[in-house]
């Protein structure tokens, strides 16, 4: 949460564990976690609580700033709809593309008739039981974005053929996916876990699979349709669509890159956040990214850049090149962008030394404030014990203290505000202060109670019922629907519009002066 009370809506800001005074680094690392922990594939990919625990363990081994097991959920919806999955002995289950669920308009009609309960179908019960802790430490709604789900239901060739030759049918498929599959799936997850944000996986919607123009026509509108649908439930969705993954460096094209960034931003609800994902970013010129973000910087907006370390570079190395990639990112973006580093889909048998080096490089070169000249910083890749040795140490056995349960908005706010407790200025200035605020989301089961006392900020969930709220004495109150809260907090609502919402009773604010104090507190952090 920023000075203006903004709840950040981007991938990078969801990577959070404590405050080391450095840039953060996260990882999509599920295959590698399975390998290190010697977990059976079926259990690992079906028991999401187990998956999270293994990821958390490996995350601590590598000193990552988020759990490492998180993975994109590509096949849950297809499985829940009755699609066949292949469960490999050592691999993530994959859809059997030889027998897709939708081969014709008749198949679509049949699927539309099928009633699927996303609380109970397929592996959803396990997902619900995990409390939505699959991708991050904050409860999240997980889903496969519309385009990638369409590929899962039809296969890529059949889908694109339909897009070209039977566009009406293709649009029907996408509408079915958004309205009849993803919206109820998101709703079920919100009901079960109180998660308010959702992150959609969309690896199929990338360059060069699709041109940016095709993505603007077929990907963005359905991502936005989903965003609009689930806003009514109080959930904000983002889709990781539009990744630029051109393999041949000689084909690198800044114009196509910029057009793909437009797709990314449009798919992230308009938030200026870009993702340098699966492409050969250790070889692409980073100046092309800065050229794109210049227009935002001129407007005084800091663009969030989640910078990926290529999976194959991570596996093959060498360490020097991995470290150099981290350093290049930091030098290019850390001073005037919100940068975080992300290890992309870490391959199964990646040498641990490579990951340790990437993490250490991020925490060394990324020490805040960022040095003027990174070459002045001495970096030596760490020499660490193997995971097998580490897992028997006292350090490994000391589980990270279990966070107290914070449902709904409380979890989301804690993820972004909790770090203030490590801030010395905050501790000093608010040592004797005592104040409390309630953010109540009127259409959700829980609101968030923020208290500041004895130099510590705390966030707790409070039940959104009349009795509880009546007995709660707070210095400041903000009450509105979740959708309105996100519009308000992300600056989408003008002052005039806010006034209108207040006059019509849709937005209630009490103790505005005290509420401003909360902004002052967060300003200490930013």
């Amino acid at each position, binding site marked *: 949460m920023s000075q203006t009370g903004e709840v950040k809506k981007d991938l990078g800001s969801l990577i959070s564990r404590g405050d080391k005074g450095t840039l953060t680094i996260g990882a999509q690392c599920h*295959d590698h976690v399975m390998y290190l922990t010697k977990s059976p594939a079926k259990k690992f990919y079906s028991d999401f609580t187990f998956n999270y625990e293994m990821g958390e363990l490996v995350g601590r081994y590598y000193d990552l700033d988020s759990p490492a097991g998180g993975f994109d959920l590509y096949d849950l919806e297809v499985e829940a709809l009755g699609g066949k999955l292949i469960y490999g002995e*050592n*691999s993530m289950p994959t859809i059997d593309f030889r027998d897709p669920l939708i081969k014709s308009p008749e198949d679509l009609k049949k699927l539309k008739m099928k009633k699927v309960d996303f609380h109970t179908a397929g592996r959803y019960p396990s997902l619900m039981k995990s409390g939505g802790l699959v991708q991050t430490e904050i409860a999240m709604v997980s889903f496969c974005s519309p385009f990638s789900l369409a590929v899962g239901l039809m296969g890529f060739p059949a889908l694109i053929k339909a897009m070209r030759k039977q566009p009406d049918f293709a649009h029907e498929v996408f509408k079915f996916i958004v309205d009849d599959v993803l919206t109820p799936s998101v709703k079920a997850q919100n009901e079960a876990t109180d998660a308010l944000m959702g992150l959609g996986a969309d690896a199929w919607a990338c360059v060069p699979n699709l041109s940016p123009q095709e993505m603007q026509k077929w990907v963005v509108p359905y991502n936005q349709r989903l965003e609009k649908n689930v806003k009514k439930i109080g959930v904000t969705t983002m889709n990781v669509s539009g990744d630029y993954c051109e393999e041949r460096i000689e084909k690198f094209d800044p114009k196509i890159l910029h057009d793909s960034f437009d797709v990314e931003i449009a798919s992230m609800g308009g938030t200026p956040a870009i993702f340098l994902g699966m492409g050969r970013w250790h070889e692409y010129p980073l100046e092309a990214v800065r050229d794109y973000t210049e227009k935002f910087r001129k407007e005084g907006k800091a663009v969030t850049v989640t910078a990926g370390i290529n999976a194959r570079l991570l596996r093959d190395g060498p360490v020097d090149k991995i470290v150099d990639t981290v350093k290049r990112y930091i030098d290019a973006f850390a001073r005037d962008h919100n940068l975080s580093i992300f290890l992309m889909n870490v391959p199964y048998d990646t040498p641990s030394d490579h990951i340790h080096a990437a993490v250490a490089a991020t925490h060394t070169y990324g020490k805040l404030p960022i040095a003027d000249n990174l070459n002045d910083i001495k970096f030596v890749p760490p020499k660490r014990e193997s995971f097998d040795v580490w897992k028997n140490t006292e350090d490994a056995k000391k589980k990270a203290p279990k966070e107290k349960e914070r449902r709904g908005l409380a979890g989301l706010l804690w993820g972004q505000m909790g770090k203030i407790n490590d801030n010395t200025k905050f501790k000093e200035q608010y040592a004797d202060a005592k104040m409390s605020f309630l953010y109540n989301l009127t259409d959700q089961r829980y609101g968030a109670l923020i208290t500041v006392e004895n130099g510590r900020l705390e966030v707790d969930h409070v039940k959104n019922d009349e009795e509880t709220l009546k007995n709660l004495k707070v210095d400041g109150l903000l009450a509105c629907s979740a959708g309105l809260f996100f519009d308000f907090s992300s600056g989408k609502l003008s002052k005039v519009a806010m006034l209108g919402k207040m006059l019509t009773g849709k937005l209630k604010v009490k103790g505005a002066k005290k509420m401003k104090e909360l902004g002052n507190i967060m300003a200490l952090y930013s």
Partner: protein
Amino acid sequence: MSVSSILDKLKKAVLEGDDDLAQELAKKALKEKIEPLKIVNEGIVPGVQEAGELWKQNIYFHTDIILCAEAFRLAMEVIEPKLSAGELGTSGKIIIGTVAGDMHNLGKIMVNATLRGGGFEVIDLGEDVSQDTFIQKVKELNPNILGLGCYMSTTMLEMKEIINKLNDEGLRNKLKVMIGGVPCTQEYANEIGADAWGKDAFDSVEKAKKLMGV
């Protein structure tokens, strides 16, 4: 319609990925008594080749290449039975397949078309192909190249096992092995003892030709 007009239209249909039209024009070409090999070499293959050029220029994306590959496949379905033995596959014989546990076929569809367009006889074993099936087919069909594809870092370990089995069976020196797919690299090809790594469909055909010396 003149011979050149039919072949030009066939090339355009393949290039633009209009599979139904490509098949129709292939039938029309045969009806007009155009030599089957001429239809392939002057109508169908040039469509794929031009698609490759457009792809290199960032004008074509995978959507275009996949549709082009489908049009190629349907046109070839008509012409292939009419070709005399030895007229196709002059560059060599390749067995390809996606390894066990992996169902992805997007890259393979494109590679299949570019290899065939490059004069290779391609036997596609499909997806989720077991190690034993690869070995059995190598013994049975005696290919010049074995092409292994995968999409996941977990399934790419299968490739190493298949090469080990080829060694165990005394087959490794009788053929070349190429690998491809998202997680693969030249480093991995070197590590497991493959002869080449195809970065993409067009790179694969160039490397396959190089391996065959054509």
